[in-house]
């Protein structure tokens, strides 16, 4: 199940995978990833760690996982 998202599409609930580096969210330190995400869209699906297709436009972004659909920010 996809966690609800904040303004920048950052998952607000526990998810298996880090959406920036694609590594297990529960392992390692992802504070750098979280900080970087303020100025980056997600690249990995937090539900399945697939690389997402990401389109950035001047006022937002859309990240698409083939399995889990679109996320917006």
């Amino acid at each position, binding site marked *: 199940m996809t966690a609800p998202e904040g303004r920048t599409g950052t998952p607000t609930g526990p998810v298996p995978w880090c959406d920036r580096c694609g590594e297990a969210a529960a392992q390692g330190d992802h504070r750098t990833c979280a900080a970087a995400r303020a*100025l980056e869209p997600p690249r990995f699906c937090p539900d399945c760690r697939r690389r997402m297709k*990401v*389109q950035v436009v*001047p006022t937002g972004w859309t990240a698409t996982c083939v399995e889990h659909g679109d996320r917006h920010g």
Partner: protein
Amino acid sequence: MSAILDRARAQVLADGVGLDEAGVLEVLRSPDDDLSALLQLAHEVRMRWCGPEVEVEGIVSLKTGGCPEDCHFCSQSGLFTSPVRSVWLDIPSLVEAAKQTAATGATEFCIVAAVRGPDARLMAQMRDGVAAIRAAVDIQVAASLGMLTKEQVDELVEMGVHRYNHNLETCRSYFPNVVTTHSWEERWSTLTMVRESGMEVCCGGILGLGESVEQRAEFAAQLAALDPHEVPLNFLNPRPGTPLGDRPVVEGKDALRAIAAFRLAMPRTILRYAGGREITLGDLGTREGLLGGINAVIVGNYLTTLGRPANADLELLTELKMPVKALSATL
């Protein structure tokens, strides 16, 4: 105050003649104690030779990722382990992005593709996209599609693209350390064709690629020799998976010194804040750069990374009493 600032005041501010490579190098080597005076002088030069207006632009990626080139800073190269995947923007979404950009007051909308140079499919997409934007949005369209043939230059002119971006990225002597799949001279050749076509030339680069201070000065001098209409100044935002992904971010004072130095090398150009300013300079540094030689901004997001919200920049411009350049002033 350093002697170089006195010389720049007499030469650049009074006469509008940019500093040469040696002069730029002196500026880049000037002490921190002189930074405030340097930025003030660069601001005076900008106000004298460009005026108070700020040109606002939005950029969008028409074709993201999967690039065959190996520009070591770029997350869109297909040769690195970057997480950026290939994706194309459809025409309705392109037009919508142009509308959103125009709504910020921007007069420029630059369509960018991560390619060595455009193929027939990309040129067809450009033709349809530019026509759709021009039919729906009151904004100037620019393009950045890599290296061009003469026929492609002519085709872009025919479409109504008024400015072409093709960054040299860094100085000639350092370029082979950054890109090996094509040469600095090939980029220069495209820029020459663009200039001859009557399109405005937009050419800048990225600071913080590992170049020396001397090479930064060399780059400013080479750009000044090209005399572009616009110079976008990027600061390296190290991207995961790229060869430069572990490089440090440019130190804020060095970035501001570079902004002022490039302004003193090119007193009349549009000097635009581009990618990396958020992580290099933050909010305070953004303001200092606008008061230190910058007279144009990219608002909103970049191609693969995010920027400050457009309204944050627009509010800052209002506070600094710097009017956004109107579309009528660009035609």
